[in-house]
């Protein structure tokens, strides 16, 4: 779902930039302030060479130094410098701030969009790729905003400012200066064209190089056992050399077209200015101050050009990242719209469950559940068993509406599941997973989750109800104990007890246990069993269990085989019938004795 590593067309690039600018455009006021300050700052900065020009022409050349006027001039110079410094500070800061705020909005948008996607999307998309889109790629966009876009804007304005100042000084020379623009533009276009090609080549070579190192590191034992070290070294050397050559090439392009070239143009421009004034002076008087100011302006003219050009290759890379983020946003956005569109109906208070001729497949071709009929009365416990691939987990996926079935109807509390409002459904059905998942935070936060209405006492009661209070209260910080990385400091049994308490605290009418006791060590088994017994009381429960000893007391046991119900009955009935269940039971019991 996330393959989009293709080359972006010009139109796509433009669309992406447009979308990026839209995010920045939200901050109109700040943007207006930043731009105003930018213009004032540039004006103030460009004022000082002009003041020096006045000083030289009106006072130094004639050799008169009236103290009053000069103090004024110095004061204005100082004021302009300070003003420009203050303006520069604020507009730099504000542009960064706009960038940061825009990127934050993009992050929240893409995160919300992903969070709203269906479980089908999550089952099909590697989580590493998603995380990388939401954090790393957006970080790349941040660079695009902060380095590229703001460089373009700030330096663009500065360039215009310099040109205006030149026109103010000498129209003819300024007009001549504009003639440099096509030359610079040509240089830019040339650089853009070649740098895109060579940087593309370079990053391609780099990724080949990294792939090779990574693959060799992972497969080193195979390489060594088959004695292919020297061949691999040779291959690596080839890629390494190609990478080096590509690096050399892009370095040469930078050297030919970047700073050295701009410096050459600036020397030529200086030659132009001096020649112009030199020739002019032979015909009539020239004010020396004007020369000073022009030289000074030209000096400032080329730095922005340099900066803009240096950001060009960065621009290409970050626009690709931006494209990936927007693509993810669009893909997941469409998905969640489909899911949300259909939930208009009423909830129910009852915990009854009924599957009426339900058929389901993940791919639309191979059914994993075929014509399933089952009904669970309020407060009953039903257990579903079967070996891997029999369709047990699919029943849960359907009941929790993570996936939608193809045929038949599922009733929850007598109402069609598809018409349950989302929020009511989530409150009504609780799920405990095989691998207890703990979030970063305290034990209390893990039990209460985002339910802030829950008092400390209620959290404690929930823990006590499942017998988790004993070990929690033995912790140094008790309920405020920080859960380490994914709860690594707790045993699996303890983690599962916390998730039990979490479920109790949310008090669902229907409880679904997805192999909730599968990974429990034998020491905590007894505690877990007791907790489970408390949990199940007064709730309609669906249990999927691998360990058959845990479901002995279920009101009903269903044996699934290849998506169909093969047997059903109570533990005793099924054992007596000598069928599949009986074999499974025997297998497990003897299992424990061997070895």
């Amino acid at each position: 779902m996330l393959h989009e590593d293709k080359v972006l067309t010009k139109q796509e690039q433009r669309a992406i930039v447009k979308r990026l600018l839209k995010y920045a455009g939200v901050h109109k006021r700040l943007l207006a302030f930043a731009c105003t300050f930018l213009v004032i700052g540039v004006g103030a900065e460009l004022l000082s060479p002009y003041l020096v020009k006045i000083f030289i022409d009106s006072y130094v050349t004639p050799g008169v130094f009236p103290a009053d006027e000069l103090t004024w001039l110095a004061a204005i110079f100082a004021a302009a410098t300070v003003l420009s410094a203050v303006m520069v500070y604020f507009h730099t800061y504000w542009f960064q701030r706009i960038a940061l705020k825009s990127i934050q909005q993009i992050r929240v948008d893409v995160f919300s969009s992903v969070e709203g996607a269906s479980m089908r999307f999550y089952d099909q998309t590697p989580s590493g790729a998603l995380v990388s889109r939401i954090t790393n790629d957006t970080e790349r966009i941040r660079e695009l905003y902060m380095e590229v876009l703001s460089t373009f804007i700030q330096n663009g304005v500065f360039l215009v400012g310099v040109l205006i100042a030149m026109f103010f000084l000498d129209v003819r020379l300024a007009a001549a200066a504009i003639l440099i623009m096509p030359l610079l533009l040509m240089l830019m276009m040339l650089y853009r064209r070649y740098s895109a090609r060579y940087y593309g080549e370079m990053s391609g070579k780099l990724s080949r190089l990294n792939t090779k190192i990574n693959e060799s590191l992972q497969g080193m034992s195979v390489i060594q056992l088959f004695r292919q070290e020297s061949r691999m070294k040779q291959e690596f050397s080839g890629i390494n050399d190609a990478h080096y050559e590509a690096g050399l090439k892009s370095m040469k392009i930078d050297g030919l077209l970047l700073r050295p070239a701009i410096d050459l143009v600036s020397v030529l421009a200086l030659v132009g200015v001096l020649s112009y004034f030199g020739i002019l002076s032979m015909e009539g008087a020239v004010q020396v101050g004007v020369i000073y100011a022009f030289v000074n302006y030209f000096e400032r003219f080329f730095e922005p050009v340099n900066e803009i050009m240096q950001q060009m290759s960065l621009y290409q890379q970050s626009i690709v990242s931006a494209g990936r983020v927007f693509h993810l946003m669009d893909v997941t956005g469409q998905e969640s719209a489909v899911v949300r569109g259909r939930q208009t109906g009423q909830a129910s208070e009852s915990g009854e469950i009924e599957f009426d001729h339900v058929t389901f497949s993940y791919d639309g071709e191979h059914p994993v559940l075929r014509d399933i009929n089952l009904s669970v009365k309020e407060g009953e416990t039903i257990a579903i068993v079967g070996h891997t691939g029999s369709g047990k987990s699919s029943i849960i996926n359907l009941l929790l509406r993570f996936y939608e079935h193809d045929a038949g109807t599922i009733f929850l509390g007598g109402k069609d599941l598809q018409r349950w409002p989302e929020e009511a459904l989530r409150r009504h059905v609780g799920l405990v997973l095989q691998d207890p998942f703990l979030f970063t935070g305290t034990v209390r936060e893990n039990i209460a989750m985002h339910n802030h209405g829950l008092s400390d006492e209620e959290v404690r009661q929930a823990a006590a109800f499942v017998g988790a209070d004993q070990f929690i209260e033995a912790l140094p910080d008790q309920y405020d104990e920080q859960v380490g990385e994914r709860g690594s400091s707790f045993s699996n049994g303890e983690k599962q007890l916390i998730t039990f308490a979490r479920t109790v605290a949310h008090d669902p009418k229907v409880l679904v246990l997805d192999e909730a006791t599968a990974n429990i060590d034998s020491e905590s088994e007894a505690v877990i069993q007791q907790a489970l017994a408390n949990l199940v009381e007064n709730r309609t429960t669906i249990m999927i269990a691998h360990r058959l000893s845990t479901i002995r007391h279920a009101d009903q046991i269903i044996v699934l085989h290849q998506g169909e119900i093969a047997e059903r009955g109570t533990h005793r009935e099924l054992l007596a019938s000598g069928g599949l269940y009986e074999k499974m039971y025997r297998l497990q019991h003897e299992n424990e004795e061997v070895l």
Partner: protein
Amino acid sequence: MRAFWDLRWFFWQERFKYSFGILLLIIVALLSLLPPYVVGVVVDAIEQNRLTTGMLAGWMGAMIAAGICMYVLRYIWRIMIFGSSLHLGRTLRYNLYQHFTRMSSDFFGRKRTGDLMAHATNDITAVQMMAGQGVLTIVDSLVMGGFVVLAMAVGISWQLTLITLLPMPLMALLTSWYGHLLHQRFGAAQQSFSQLNNRTQESISGVKVTKTFGYEQEDIEAFDAQSRDVVNKNERVARIDALFDPTITLIIGVCYLLAIGFGAGYVNDGSITIGQLTTFSVYLGMLIWPMLAFGWFFNIIERGHASYDRIRDLMAERTDITDQKAGVEDVPAGAVQIDIDEFYYPRSETKALHDIHASVQPGQTIGIVGRTGSGKTTLLRLLLRELKSGDGAITIGGTPAEAYYLDTYRLAFGNVPQEHFLFSMTLADNIAFSNPEATQQDIQRAAGLAAIHDDIVALPYGYATAVGERGVTLSGGQKQRISIARALLQNPEILILDDALSAVDANTEQQILEALKRERRGKTTFIVTHRMSTVKEADAVWVMAHGTIVENGSHRALMEAKGIYAEMVKREELKAQVERGNR
């Protein structure tokens, strides 16, 4: 500076390029003094009305020549200095890679692939930066800065220079202070970002829980809060970062004010000309870069130094599996004798294997069964010399395993490891991994024996189909069979299948086992498996538990003994019945 000293071997090796590059940098610095000087000369000539066409043309010609010279020289020193630094990167990367190929499994067990990757990429880039940008910044700040100050002081007026440069140290002081603050705040921002990263990771991993409770909105709000924290921390960075330019503007402004103010006085009393004052002000602007470069230099060196130390530590690692001085050059053949009294993994206190005494005649097939962690793979890795066994614990054809040269020793073995690993090459290249010169016929034969030929032919590009990220997705069973074909291609004296048939269905497995029996007459085969039916026809089955062989015998003998093996077989039959749905 010690960082440069550590790299002296490289600078010495590239001494001509560096000397030449630095020489060019010095020439460029000298040449760049010319344009401002010419500006002064021309301004004076205009002011005193003595400018002639010839004079103007002469100076302009000189300037153009200098400009072109600088362009060419700047281009060349980049090739000399930056080119050498790229060369350093290439050399270090190759050395590191070569070093990796020499390291044993112990090394790769201790280091994480991600860390090794970081050394081979980020650390090398940092060292490369040091040899390129690092050299440039220090040379440029010293040479350029020195020349400009010299030109100002000697060429124009040392008094004016002194007065004007008075605020400059303040700039160095302030920027280094900002750098310090920036470093701290940037660290905080990085940390906040990595928290955001972890949060996102957690949200995605725990999405099922969140969705079950219907807490998506709350989770989004929590994400929003964390991402706001990232913004706040970054704004703190931006507040410092935005100080650099205004500070430079202010201080340079003061310098200008001093230069122009006092300069005007000197012009008035005739000690300098108006043209010289103009030149002076241009020189002033040229001092900004060397000042910044100097600060930059220390950053580059600091990072490069740390990186180079890490690379050197890595390169200093020695492998624990080495050749003896006067080794046996033969390819091992003959009976395998194993006498392991005890074996510990390096740096481990728990006994991995103990009291294993067994022998294998050439041509025998040995099945090895036992629970996960019973020591099956460890035993095979000792046999393969991936791990270092005690002296003479394993002998082949009467010669201790360590006595063979590692390279020829491994020629005798074909191994199919538990974790199948395919390279991102074509299927044909993967199968012919041990021998790139293998003919298509050899490859197809090996594929046929491993029962993968038909699968491969059915693929769109057949044997030319690429494997890996951008290639075709193969099932676990297909990957296993390709690994088997890879091992069979070299027709090894000893073949090891370490649980290599786990993802292959029973019929295909039988097919492969029959092919092995037929083709590998007279050659030794070890098969580790969890499936009892696989080893039914083996000459001997070793049942392993807790690091030793607890039962050893043929299928029939072990069945009669009614021990662990017999129990395992019985259980498997029951399991098969369940899987068939009691039919």
